[in-house]
């Protein structure tokens, strides 16, 4: 049994405490925008925000998460896909298959919150999620667009 604050709502879930947060979000809570890619904190497909920090939810046992921790998933990033990152992603046609993009968008949103005008080097360091389709060039450009400036 765990009590979670996800996208501003408190949810009680029946689950073993060693279950990764990713699977609780996907299976018990039913929000499937957060993806499984590796399960070992390598790919970032499972990225969510916890108290404003981007975290890889596949590597966090749900038992370590408190009801006071604010979890935001891709579904909770904005009500109408209006976050600047989402808008930039749409304008630049970033996604290919799209499977990694929830995680990419969550990583970019967290980066911009901390660093509203990231340099290319900042983007290199913060955006470490895997995209097997290879959308990296457009991700970089879209982060700059979301930051309100042309590509550095």
């Amino acid at each position, binding site marked *: 049994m765990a009590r979670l604050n996800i996208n501003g709502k408190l949810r009680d879930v029946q689950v073993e405490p060693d279950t990764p947060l990713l699977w609780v979000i996907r299976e018990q809570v039913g929000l*499937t925008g957060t993806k499984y890619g590796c399960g070992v904190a390598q790919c970032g497909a499972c990225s969510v925000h916890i108290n404003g920090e981007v975290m890889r939810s596949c590597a966090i046992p749900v038992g370590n998460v408190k009801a006071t921790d604010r979890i935001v998933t891709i579904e909770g990033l904005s009500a109408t896909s209006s976050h600047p990152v989402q808008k930039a992603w749409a304008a630049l046609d970033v*996604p290919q*298959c799209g499977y990694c993009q929830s995680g990419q968008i969550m990583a970019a949103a967290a980066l911009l919150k901390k660093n509203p005008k990231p340099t290319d080097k900042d983007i290199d360091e913060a955006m470490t999620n895997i995209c097997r389709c290879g959308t990296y060039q457009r991700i970089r450009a879209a982060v700059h667009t979301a930051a309100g400036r042309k590509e550095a």
Partner: protein
Amino acid sequence: MNKFSSKIPSLSRRKFIIDSAAVGGGLAVGFNLPIGRAADAKNTLRGNEVNAWVVVKPDSSCVIRVARSEMGQGTHTGLVQLVAEELECDWKKLSIDQVTAGENLARKRVWGEMGTGGSRGIRISQDYVRRGGAVARVMLLQAAAEQWKVPVEELSVAKGVITHATSKRSTTYGKVAAAAAKLTPPDPKSIKLKDPKDWKIAGKPVLRLDTADKLNGSKLYSIDLKLPGMLHAAIRQCPVFGGKLSSFDEAKIAGMPGVKRAVKVNDSAVAVVADTWWRAKKALDALPIVWDEGAGTAESSATIAERLKGGLTASDEPFAGWQVGDALKAIGGAAKKIDAVYSTPFLAHATMEPMNCTARVSAERVEVWGPTQNAEASLAAASEESGLPLGKAEVYKLDLGGGFGRRGGTQDYTRQAVAIAKQFPGVPIKLVWSREEDMQHDFYRPISMCKLSAGLDETGKLQGLHIRISGQSINAFLNPAVIKEGRDMRQVQGMYKDPGDAQFAYTVPNLLIEYAMRNSHVPVGPWRGVNTNQNGVYLECFIEEVARAAGTDSLEFRRALLHDHPKHLGVLNAAAEKADWGKPLPPGVHRGIAQFMGYGSYSAAVAEVSVSAKGELKVHRMVLALNCGHAVNPQQIAMQVEGSVAFGLTATLYGELTVGNGRIQQSNFHDYAIMRLAEMPKVETVIVPTYDFWGGVGEPTICVVAPAVLNAIFAATGKPVRSLPLKNVKLV
């Protein structure tokens, strides 16, 4: 505004009414479609099917049907552009409807083949989908002409609004669709398609139609599917290829939370079924399993390499290949001789969405929901595995989280889901592979080696070239019937004699190209770009060695050999020009160039790299030139080219699977690394379509990525790199 003058020639038509009745009785309508299509299907029914490709709703918005799979490559948007171009509908008011394999079967394959691989999605369907749009347009105009009692020649149409200028009347597609649907369609072949230079929607860099739900988590991939009463399965397959399941001790996991049962899956796998996937996986990890690992355990990377080496020098066996003149004699008598042996490893697809499939099987029906590049292959697999006839099978495909060749002909995951679901009659079972299973049970890019020899005359002209490839054959594993007398030409892809698909373009007076088949127990299959990847490395890196031995500039040496093949030469020149070949670079930066052909398209690349004193490589910039004949969406093409650079560079830098005790030794992204954003070079795409053929886009450019980079490294270090990946190579 376009004017059309088309009389409708008569052709017998199977009316949609009849079709839909047949469909309702047998296949597509009348059973549960709990995903996507349910809502769509209702809307579709409110519209009028003008023909198989086009449904027009009362508000004139159009539903365009597509049969090919979308896995990120943009095929859906491209196909809809082609239909819409001929249809003359409003681009802002259309949606995509994916037909199912069962519907296609029931309507005698009115939508053609559904398989999506080999970069064929657009080039093979372009003619009939454009005619599909054109036929619908002609029928809609004819309906308006009949209503107004005016000659159809006097009508014009734009964005779904039909106008009769003389009488100043206008109507819309939505208003005439019902009447149009009752007309006899013209013979599609009788319609003249637009000249691409008149295209208004096709040929333009329009945004994809399928982006919105990828931005907010609402897109449903197959792995996200939820069906009422569904259970979840986690699977473990014998770690040694060819091995079998001996036994498992189900009692040890009885009572674990959520667990229903452990079941045998065919001969070589076991699955645990539970109420959630995580609980199934946890129980599977706790399940004692005994394998009969079989003869494969004797295989390792070393034994496989030995076998391949044997193929490099073997003499008395059938080789696939072709020749001109006498290469061995010419090289033997040459003033200067160059020899090299290259090698490339097994690679995994590692689609971002792991293998998964949902199946529900009863005595009467088998239904499958899955990420498939070939819904008809999935249908056949579901039918065979369930023992039910094709007519009692249905496949709902969901857009794939990556395909890259893994989910086409190889329907192992579909068969497994059906095999498990058979043991739970009526219950939908969602099978999801862990990343570890995915990495260790792929159909890998085949391992190979290549021995090359060249002979130059005193003036540095290439007189003889001998290429001997030795390695695994994809056909031997997946399609042995096509191999005749031990010769498999597919493994020399990119070095074919014949034009059109993947032609060898250098004119060499004495040439010998051979492939010696050397198989192992490791499953192999098509991997984005397939055999053009390694063959591109072999040929283009060796040509670089030969050019340097001849003391000739890399670009000039190639140009001189390409005079008989203007399209190959065209892309080479386009890449060189865009990259300012020959002009100075910043200190420490070096260029490399390559050209190659695959999937009916011509590709060339220039890479700019630097290698630090410590041997660290940085790829700064890549320019790629592509002639794919017709460019349906330049922005999508650029995205595919960028993606191919990431895919190709990942292989070049890191890609390698090794074999020990008969099993793959890597298991996840920590030991099978994928390139990240920081390593992505600046990619510039030059599209040079000649509009006299239709080539592919998703795969062609990948084969020039590695050789361009390796040739730039050669320029930087003065040493050729002959074995991949670079993580194993000391550059300085």
